């Protein structure tokens, strides 16, 4: 389980996150939603240790990630998988080398075992035939899938996805969402997804946290989100004309 407590972050005079708290449970796909500039990505970066918040705690199964010693932080990092917005694949490595990279750097596995594990992960995301291609030779959707394969190659307990659907067509988006949900169920991972995609929200949002101007405005699930009385949330959800028409 991941628990965040009272996360506060400011950049200069500007408050980006103020007092965000919440729990993310194993086997759940939890979504953090909100408009652009509401602090979603900053919150994610605080959770994965790329940004240090001024105040607050991030607890991974009770272990404090922000104030823990170096060994604790290292151990938690090794249990994390992160899918970045653009995939963040290493340009100079092939798809297979990208997936194998965490194993090469962080484990003492024999090469054959590493290859087997990397190929299994590529197979799991349906890209076993793209193993020898370079990141520049594959599509945006494939990059995200390779990113997922790399994120799960170390058998993580916690999976973070930053805008997994950005820049993808609706069909590919759905496939990526399904993949995230399947992997979460299959490996009982605690998954946190940052998104503003309504389809994702309805498809995989077992637990949803809505951020508005750096504050948590609402928390619930995809089944209760449409009954919310929070004006900012309703404005966000029904910005889409199709959903507005459906509601009417």
């Amino acid at each position: 389980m991941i628990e965040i407590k009272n996360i506060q972050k400011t950049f200069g005079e500007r408050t980006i996150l103020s007092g965000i708290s919440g729990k993310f449970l194993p086997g759940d796909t939890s979504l953090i939603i909100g408009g652009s500039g509401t602090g979603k990505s900053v919150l994610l970066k605080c959770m994965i240790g790329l940004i240090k918040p001024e105040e607050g705690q991030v607890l991974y199964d009770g272990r404090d990630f922000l104030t823990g010693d170096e060994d604790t932080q290292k151990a938690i990092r090794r249990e994390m998988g992160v899918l970045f917005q653009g995939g963040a694949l290493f340009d100079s490595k092939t798809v297979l080398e990208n997936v194998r990279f965490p194993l090469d750097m962080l484990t003492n596995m024999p090469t054959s075992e590493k290859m087997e594990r990397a190929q299994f992960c590529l197979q799991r995301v349906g890209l076993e035939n793209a193993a020898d291609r370079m990141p520049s030779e594959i599509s945006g959707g494939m990059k995200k899938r390779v990113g997922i394969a790399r994120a799960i190659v170390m058998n993580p307990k916690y999976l973070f996805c930053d805008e997994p659907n950005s820049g993808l067509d609706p069909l590919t988006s759905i496939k990526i969402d399904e993949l995230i949900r399947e992997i979460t169920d299959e490996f009982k991972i605690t998954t946190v997804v940052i998104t503003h995609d309504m389809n994702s929200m309805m498809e995989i949002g077992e637990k949803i946290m809505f951020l508005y101007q750096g504050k948590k405005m609402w928390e619930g699930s995809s089944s209760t989100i449409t009954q919310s009385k929070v004006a900012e949330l309703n404005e966000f959800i029904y910005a889409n004309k199709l959903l507005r028409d459906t509601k009417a």
Partner: protein
Amino acid sequence: MHHLGRYFIFLGSLFRNREKMGVYSKLVLDECIQIGINSVFIVSIVSTFIGAVTCVQTAYNLVSPLVPLTIIAVIVRDSTILELAPTITCVVLSGKVGSNIAGGLGTMRITEQIDALEVMGINSSSYLVLPKVLASMITFPMLVILAGFLSIYGGYIAGTAADIITPEDYISGLRSDFKPFSITFALIKSVVFAFLISTISSFKGYYTAGGALEVGQASTAAVTNSCIAVLAADFLLAQLLL
């Protein structure tokens, strides 16, 4: 001062939480190819022509019959070894290698590749930058030796082809009053310049923030700052060691 302090902190970060040495050996080798082998062509062209021009221009300025022609070779040799080979080669390399390093790291930064390394618990500055610094410090002296050789040879070709000096006079000039410390001095300079160029360019690239425009700006700043640092270090080393 703020940037200088940040630069020294950055240098310190290269040596903290390093990965296993085995990881670096392959990376250093790759960088040696990228930085060293891929620069051989430009260094060869530049140094050959600089040597040729130095020979022709020295001859043009030596019109007195009292000055022996062998002095042309002495001037080509000394100016090449002391200044042209290490400094001009490194200024050229700060353009080629510096912009490449800053651009590469800047792109990795804005496409979150550096973040991906950090999240895995890998010291990204050490993993990405240290091999570049080591490879530069290994290959720059080799390139400077090559540049020195080609520059002197360029002078020989130009001098003999244009009938400025006979091959015998040129060789005799090269041999006369030679100070071996000049070579040591050139190699010390090349190692210092390699360190400055690779670390300044890496620093500029590593802390790029924004998008493609900022990557371009980081590359330009890397080249400009590296050139200034090389010239300042050139002066300091000349004062200290000669």
